[in-house]
């Protein structure tokens, strides 16, 4: 019964049933037990479907730019997917997801599928399940899929590893340029978009960005800089040309497939490892809280628990090898 439900839902995604796809996206987001088998069924490492990441400060105009890009790709006959991530409240766990507000031009277009996500405590500007959600969009043949991150500041660079092309959106007049030099935000864009180019301060911003890019040791990796106004639409064609150039300049399909697969596997290893380790510590001490008590009572230290975990995973592997030999 289980497997027929999995096949039924996977089939709905493939046949582009919006309701079915929306349900599967919720299952993925909620960590539903059927989500992994559905993703297993949908996964195709050599899938088409370009992922364009859009990141930048809060208020930089990411949603408005996304709205423009949707219009452009729709005009060219593409079915466009959008994943828009907004922050969840760390206090209530709730979220106010408002990115659709700026994408109203496409609100009733059946060729556009927009999904809003709360980050649900995940750091890095995305939600922990954005990557898996992308597989669902691709299986329903949305191409491209635009991923709009939450407003990010200085080190939320996860999008760069997830998207095939990343747009970093900057705006003039935010002042202190040292802010952008601090941690890594300037390093993630394939294309740097200087939005709100009709505003004062655009020349200084251009100058500063270009001067920073001059410092990149390998100038073949230098990102393209495009000035535009997402609101008026001015400069958008320059941007979409730059995206197209980036794609053709970019690596072949096998390389992209390998990169995507590596990232998915890495995040699954991380998640599963965390789960397994947590469970083992809970089993051993009754609960994580009780493990903390034991440490506070001087019976053990966090490091000893770490060693115990390494031993546990090592033993598990030996047991498995023995099973195979038997």
């Amino acid at each position, binding site marked *: 019964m289980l497997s027929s439900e999995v096949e039924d839902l996977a089939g709905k995604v493939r046949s582009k049933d*919006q*309701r079915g796809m*929306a*349900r599967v*996206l*919720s299952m993925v987001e*909620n*960590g*539903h*037990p059927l989500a992994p088998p559905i993703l297993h069924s949908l996964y195709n490492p050599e899938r088409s479907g370009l992922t364009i990441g859009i990141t930048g400060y809060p208020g930089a105009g990411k949603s408005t730019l996304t709205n423009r890009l949707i219009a452009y790709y729709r005009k060219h006959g593409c079915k466009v997917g959008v994943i828009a991530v907004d922050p*969840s*409240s760390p*206090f*209530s*766990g*709730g*979220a*106010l*997801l*408002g990115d*659709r*507000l700026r994408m*109203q031009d496409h*609100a*009733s277009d*059946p060729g556009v*599928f*927009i*999904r*809003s996500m*709360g980050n*649900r405590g995940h750091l890095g500007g995305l939600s922990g399940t954005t990557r898996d959600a992308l597989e669902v969009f691709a299986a329903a043949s949305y191409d491209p899929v635009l991923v709009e991150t939450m407003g990010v500041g200085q080190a939320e660079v996860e999008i760069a590893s997830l998207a095939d092309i990343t747009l970093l959106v900057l705006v003039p007049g935010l002042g202190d340029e040292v802010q952008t030099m601090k941690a890594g935000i300037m390093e993630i864009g394939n294309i740097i978009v200087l939005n709100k180019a009709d505003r004062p301060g655009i020349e200084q911003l251009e100058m500063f960005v270009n001067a920073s890019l001059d410092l990149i040791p390998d100038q073949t990796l230098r990102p393209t800089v495009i000035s535009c106004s997402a609101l008026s639409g001015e400069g958008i064609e320059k941007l979409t040309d730059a995206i197209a150039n980036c794609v053709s300049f970019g690596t072949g399909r096998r390389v992209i497939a390998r990169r995507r697969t590596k990232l998915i596997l890495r995040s699954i290893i991380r998640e599963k490892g965390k789960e397994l380790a947590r469970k083992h510590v809970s089993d051993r001490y009754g609960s994580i809280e009780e493990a903390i008590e034991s440490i506070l009572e001087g019976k053990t230290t966090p490091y000893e628990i770490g060693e115990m975990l390494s031993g546990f995973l090592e033993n598990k592997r030996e047991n498995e090898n023995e099973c195979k030999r038997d």
Partner: protein
Amino acid sequence: MDRKIRVLIGKPGLDGHDRGAKYIARALRDAGMEVIYTGIRQTPEAIVNAAIQEDVDFVGLSLLSGAHNHLFPEVARLLNEKGGSDIILFGGGVIPEEDIPGLKKAGFKAIFTPGASSSEVVDFIEQEIQTH
């Protein structure tokens, strides 16, 4: 599993008074829900399209222009048509007492009129999700 209650708050029709809608959106967020706010001047088609794609449990409509007797049932009809008949509908705004039975008949589980507190809306949603 970490399931969140998802609610779409939308304003169909032509009035631009969105303070009530934003106030409710904020209150639901503070109650731990994920609220998709779609903004003012939405067509019923756009609201229903968003509700389906966002896989929400509830759609709440706010309207102060007086066109509720037309627009609320239209949202309900389209939602049924698109396979979203299990999504629970509620509404709010300046809605005369005598219109409420008709809207309930059209599929609205609750109508909140001026003076209703945000906690009444939160309670309604939390009760409905239990029995749903």
